[in-house]
């Protein structure tokens, strides 16, 4: 249950990132307030290993990282006159590995650095998916 709450929160953060990537590409203003209120995000305590509500500082750190606006590509024209774009880390493909409950490791992808970071955080709390990661129940 706790993991599910954390997973839902993480997915929400991913959605914010995606929306903002779109907003950035259309020149819209990007909000900076975390969507979830403190207490709706569960983290694993680094000392006890137990799940607990995120502190306000942890929430800001978690969401502050995940809602950064994706970097938009920069239009360029080559010396030979070809139109182009300089791509950024957010157009790169990121590969993320997660350890499964049975100790095996699954490898999946993320769309740019912003979402890769979010996926690592989510996976660290037990959210994994993919061809090699069947559900336990």
């Amino acid at each position, binding site marked *: 249950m706790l993991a599910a709450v954390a997973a839902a929160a993480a997915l929400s953060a991913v959605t914010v990132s995606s*929306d903002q990537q779109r907003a950035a590409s259309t020149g819209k203003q990007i909000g900076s307030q975390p969507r979830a209120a403190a207490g709706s995000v569960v983290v694993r305590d680094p000392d006890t290993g137990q799940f607990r509500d995120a502190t306000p500082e942890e929430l800001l750190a978690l969401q502050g990282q995940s809602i950064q606006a994706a970097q938009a*590509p920069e239009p360029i024209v080559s010396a030979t006159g070809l139109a182009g774009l300089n791509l950024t880390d957010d157009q790169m493909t990121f590969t993320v590995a997660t350890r499964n409950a049975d100790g095996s490791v699954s490898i999946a992808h993320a769309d740019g650095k912003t979402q*890769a970071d979010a996926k690592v955080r989510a996976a660290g709390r037990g959210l994994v998916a993919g061809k090699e990661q069947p559900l336990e129940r």
Partner: protein
Amino acid sequence: MNANLNLVRGFRSVALLAALTLWAGTAHAAATIVIQNTDAPNVGFNDPTPAAPIGGNPGTTIGQQRLNVFQAAANIWGANLNSVPTIIVDAAWSALACNANAATLGSAGATQVFSSAIFPFPNTWYNVALANKLFGAQIDPTTPQIRARFNVNLGQPGCLTGVFFYLGLDANHGSNIDLETVLLHEFAHGLGFQSFTTQAGSNLGPPFQPSVFSQFELDTTTGKQWPTMTDAERAASSINTRNVVWTGANVTASVPSVLLFGTPRLLTTAPASLAGNYLVGLAQFGPAPSSPGVNAEVMPLTGTGNQLLGCDPFNALNVAAVAGKIALIDRGVCGFVVKAKNAQNAGAVGVIIQNNAAGSPPPGMAGVDPTVVIPTVMITQGDGAAFRNFLKFRSRTHSGMFSTIGVDPNLRQGADAANRVMLYTPNPYVPGSSVSHWDTSAFANLLMEPNINGDLTHNVTSPFDLTLEILHDLGW
């Protein structure tokens, strides 16, 4: 910064040889791929930590071994692609996001895209390496064509602790991660295996126009190619599970030598209103679906709580319902293997688990119990709801609904009936994985599936793989 240029493959002499031997019908591919080491002294490729040679990698330091693996992956693409302009990979190792149980392994991709009327598809973005090839020269000589960043801390405490990059060249990676396979995958993204379309369906821009990859994407439900769609239509298509296919001729022609027949399915034959094939998730336990499969009447459970969910031994009513039949059971509360064993003990010949969460395709099911000898598959929540709507009207021992847990012997795994390979379009959308990979139903496993499977070799072309074929479709 220590910016060493390390020539990976000096293929110009090979290219000359190829030109001289064309009369014999021999086609030698030739591309020069250079790894540009941008690591600082003593870091990454320059890490002086001694290391014993491993798996055919003769390097004697960690840094040299890393560079050798990058070279090996680049060698494979260099040997298979044709390009007059050199391809430069800006490569470095750095501290990327990680914790004890997860880590960003690395990132890679094209540094630029270009568009030109002289390219095969006008008003279309081409990754810069391919654009250079088509243009015949470096369009921007000041910028590398591919950027690669990999996690220098992988395996250290707090960074997917204990799981390291395997630096051998023989794919004998054991429980570690085969760096060469990951690099082959990531370099392929940088060479063009990337849609660049956002989750909202927007093309890359400005100006907003399709990538060359998108030119080969077809939604088989709407019959529309992706470049002809609106943003909203592309967004909808990107979650149209297993109904978006690759139309490139090179890939399709190679499918028969790569993908195996026998797509798992649930085939419902009665009632007529439900007749058809349904997507299934597979179980790690029990027999895999086969041909001709297990055909029987489908019966749901009755009762409440654990009895309804199949988590307790079946009572007399449920034994009477499922004996000799396929049991339809909701997902939830207990493990899948418990449900399957209880159904088997009640005399069921197969089990259908209805997902309790929305989404498609249905996920796989974990569990171990060698005493389970009946097949179990999962269907989507939506398909299960349609089944149950019909099953509301049944007797205690008969429903009139008949299904087969089996495989389609005439359909190759990961392709449609026309041998077009399916792209990965799960619902919900998976950022970074959706669209720009093959569907996970592909078998044999392919290099460019979103999950890099542990059984991959370093072969990138048929009969082992389809990556080179898709690059040929793109214009390589």
